[in-house]
């Protein structure tokens, strides 16, 4: 007896749909490798159009248009203040410079040191997600397999030491955190932007004291009975918190105590204390502070990223040389 079987397109469709359902319920174990395979197909042709897109978007971005009159005035006042502070410290610096001339231990002072135990891997954005809900980008980091969880910044590190430095020593200047690596393959990796709803990282909120601005009265709790005092440089301790992406291009910090008196203009800095970052890196600026309707003692802080995420092109991946937080 012979069974005659015909393999039609309906059968193929049934098998493919069943495999899709299976892949769906298998979760990231299957999704990751499949996307890595697909990642080989996009880079050959996506580089040039992505370059065009980032060029156009960086020109269209309103943040490139300079400062508003209010911001310029605030910046001018801040600069005046910093200039005075700088002159003060310059005088002190001169005193210490004379004292240091008496010291002879140059080896200890100028010997090799490790400023930042991390390596910077330059990478380039190759493509965005296919759907607008996606807050990730495909990056290529010079053909290297990138470590999942590595933070990603925008700017090059700059050294200000006159002496020639060996590689890997640097001083961080104005770089901004833009996300972290969430998946990595042989040639491409997936960068999760800081605005992704599932992005979360420990941060410190640095309150900015602007000369001439209305004073902030904060509650100081350091080892004594809580007392109210004006915010000064002496008691301006950074506020530890967790920042998350909102999915709408902003960042949110929930459950911040109201007595910290966070205001628009304060800065969010990725905290090195959390262990994920080798150093502190700026993330964004507070744009709105909302009172918690259920608890008057807490507020929700909304911030905007410093980096123009829409026109992101060249980024740097911070890869720790030694385990971060380790000895």
């Amino acid at each position: 007896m012979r069974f005659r079987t015909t393999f039609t397109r309906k059968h193929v469709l049934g098998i493919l749909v069943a495999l899709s359902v299976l892949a769906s319920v298998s979760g990231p174990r299957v999704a990751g490798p499949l996307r890595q395979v697909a990642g080989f197909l996009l880079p050959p042709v996506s580089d040039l159009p992505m370059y065009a897109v980032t060029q156009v978007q960086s020109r269209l971005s309103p943040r490139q248009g300079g400062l508003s009159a209010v911001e310029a005035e605030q910046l001018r006042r801040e600069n005046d203040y910093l200039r005075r502070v700088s002159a003060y410290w310059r005088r002190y610096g001169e005193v210490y410079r004379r004292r240091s001339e008496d010291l002879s231990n140059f080896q200890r002072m100028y010997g090799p040191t490790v400023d930042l135990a991390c390596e910077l891997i330059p990478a380039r954005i190759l493509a965005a997600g296919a759907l607008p809900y996606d807050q990730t980008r495909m990056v290529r980091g010079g053909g290297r397999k990138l470590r999942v969880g590595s933070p990603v910044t925008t700017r090059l590190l700059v050294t200000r030491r006159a002496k020639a430095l060996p590689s890997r020593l640097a001083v961080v200047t104005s770089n901004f955190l833009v996300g972290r690596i969430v998946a990595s393959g042989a040639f491409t990796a997936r960068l999760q932007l800081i605005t992704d709803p599932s992005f979360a990282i420990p941060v410190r909120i640095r309150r900015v004291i602007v000369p001439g601005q209305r004073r902030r009265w904060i509650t100081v709790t350091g080892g004594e009975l809580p007392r109210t005092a004006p915010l000064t440089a002496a008691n301006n301790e950074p506020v530890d918190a967790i920042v998350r992406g909102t999915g709408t291009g902003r960042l949110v910090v929930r459950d911040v105590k109201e007595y910290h008196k966070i205001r628009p203009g304060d800065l969010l800095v990725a905290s090195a204390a959390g262990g994920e970052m080798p150093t502190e890196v700026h993330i964004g600026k507070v744009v709105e502070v909302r009172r918690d309707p259920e608890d008057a003692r807490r507020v929700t802080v909304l911030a905007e990223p410093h980096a123009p995420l829409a026109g992101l092109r060249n980024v740097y991946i911070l890869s720790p040389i030694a385990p971060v937080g380790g000895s």
Partner: protein
Amino acid sequence: MRWIPLLILTYLLVVVQTTLGRLLVFSTAIGPVGPDLLAPLAVFVAFGARSWPDAMLAAWAMGLAVDLATAGGPAGATVVGPMAVAYALTAGVLFRVREAFFRERVLTQGLLTCAFCLLAHGLWITAQSLLAPGAVPWSLYGRAWGQVAAVGLYTAVLTPLLHYAFSKTRRWILVGSAGAVRRGRR
């Protein structure tokens, strides 16, 4: 159905959507909104395919391409598969009901593409929310539906242009006629 040209066209559309397509995305209070360029192609194929397995297989391939090129969603990281199933099922539904519409009309194309996006993307965000590792709050899910509606409308606006472009490549991706196309009353 000519599968090789169709797969090449799908690939090109994915490349356009993941690169140049970012220029069409704009930020709103509910999140980024941009068009889904593969949805009009799926609708075009569902309109012109000779059989429902052809329409569903083509849509499955397009959905899989979208799935592979999308790593994030309303609840963060996403899985591969739901969009392939959603596209295939929605194209199957569209194939069944296509005789009831005047397919050559711009308004019909726009409305059906909007409906396609609502159905396929709605299924996708629901599946991704259910399969997400953590619980997805209702507020986030509701906001994602708002995005889906905006994406559907946006795609519908661009659909006539894309359908015109696809009609120029009809003989490259579709074989023969798709049965009698119902014409409007004169």
